[in-house]
């Protein structure tokens, strides 16, 4: 599903963010990418999500070499990845349901189809009781779940979630992890970036440790 080899990434200022990354994630697997702040987790996730172009090394996602994709093909690949960026902020002046339908309708779904998919996604993450609530009024746990609902709303093959547990208390992190784990168990592949410590139960999945742009333990 994901295969990364000899991946390097340097910022415009010459700071090395990622160094010689080798990584492999099998179909249906869930793994955590764990490391301190500025370890390079977000950049790695954004590279895997085809949000930024790689500089050197090879990234194969869903069998496609990201470096060789045209803009159009990269857009096509992105549509099959449910990516939630770090510090995810929903559309504040729209309801929970409208947040999900906006994404689906912008991607070309008709109203009825978008609503059907959105309701299904919100049910999967347990946000059905709050679907009429303005996103700006959501609690952090519900906000993290909305990010997940957005990611799974269009039946992706891969979920990349950057730091879903940030700003959450222990109990909230556990709840979000449980939701994530339940959804992933239906056969999705998921790579989740997080800081240590992970919520209870998350340790049963593979943990890839990242520090100073290098994989220290996979």
């Amino acid at each position, binding site marked *: 599903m994901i295969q990364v080899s000899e991946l390097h990434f340097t910022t415009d200022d010459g700071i090395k963010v990622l160094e010689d990354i080798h990584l492999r994630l099998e179909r249906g697997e869930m793994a955590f990418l764990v490391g301190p702040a500025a370890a390079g987790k977000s950049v790695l996730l954004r590279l895997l999500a*085809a949000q930024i172009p790689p500089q050197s090394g090879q990234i194969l996602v869903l069998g496609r070499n990201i470096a060789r994709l045209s*803009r159009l093909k990269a857009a096509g690949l*992105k549509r099959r990845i449910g990516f939630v*960026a770090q510090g995810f902020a929903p559309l504040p002046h729209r309801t929970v349901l409208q947040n999900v339908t*906006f*994404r689906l*309708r*912008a*991607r070309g*779904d008709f109203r009825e189809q978008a609503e059907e998919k959105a309701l299904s996604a919100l049910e999967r993450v347990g946000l059905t009781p709050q679907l009429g609530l303005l996103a700006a009024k959501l609690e952090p746990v519900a906000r993290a779940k909305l990010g997940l609902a957005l990611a799974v709303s269009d039946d992706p093959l891969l979920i990349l979630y950057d730091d879903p547990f940030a700003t959450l208390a222990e109990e909230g992190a556990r709840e979000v992890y449980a939701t994530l784990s339940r959804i992933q168990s239906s056969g999705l592949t998921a790579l989740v970036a997080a800081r240590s410590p992970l919520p209870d139960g998350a340790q049963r999945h593979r943990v890839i440790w990242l520090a100073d742009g290098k994989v220290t333990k996979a």
Partner: protein
Amino acid sequence: MTGFFFVLGELIRALRQKGGGFIFLAILFVFLFLAVFSGLFLVGGPGQGTDAPRPLGGKILVHLTPGLSPQAIQALYIQLLEEREAERVNVLAGDALAPGGATLQVQATSPAAGRTLVEKLKTTPGIASVDYASAKRGLSLPVSSSLRLGLLLGLAASAVGSLFFARLGFRGLLGAFAEEIKLMRVSGLSEAMILGPIVVAGVLFGLTGSLFLIAAVNLAHVGLAAHPQAVPPLVAGILEATRVQAVSLLSVPLGFLMGALFGALGASLAGSRELQP
């Protein structure tokens, strides 16, 4: 295309939150730009600055001697109709054009025929004067050079003003739509699907300005038919039926071009770093 039109609709709806006022001003300036453009290039040909209305190219205004009896006017009308150089003759509501006398308008079969006919008419009894604009002049009416300069300045000012307000409007609009743009980018929408609706929205704004002008000149043209003396000659010139048609035809592509400029401006703003996820 469903997604494209959805994004376009949402973008225009976001005008209610921010940028709507500036976009309205930009549309107003497009209206002004097109109005001045019409005044300058459809009416304002180089001339001596006379205030008197002139006939259109190929048409001859025949001012009859004041005090002619209706029978004499009818006789002249029939005489003109029978001239082989004349294609059509109309009786104008002459008071405003030639105080004290009636005026006939003659459409010549060609510019050369018009000149021949004018020479004939000058010596015809019962005709006070003849006014003929050559076909070369086309749709132009003479305006003074100072008015022409004023119109040129107005044209430049309205173009700059429309772009200025369009930029402010798009900045506000894209600010209100920023999170949506970021979400679309993260979701894998191509740049064409994100920037395309912004360009189309700009075109719609430009076309709205041109539609305002078309509506205004057509309404004013209808109103002018009832009160021809109520407007200055230059305005009356713009509101002449042929020119109203020309203004309408010219406004649409010009409004489209202005709108495309707005759209390009909006798209360049949407490509900025702040709107990247």
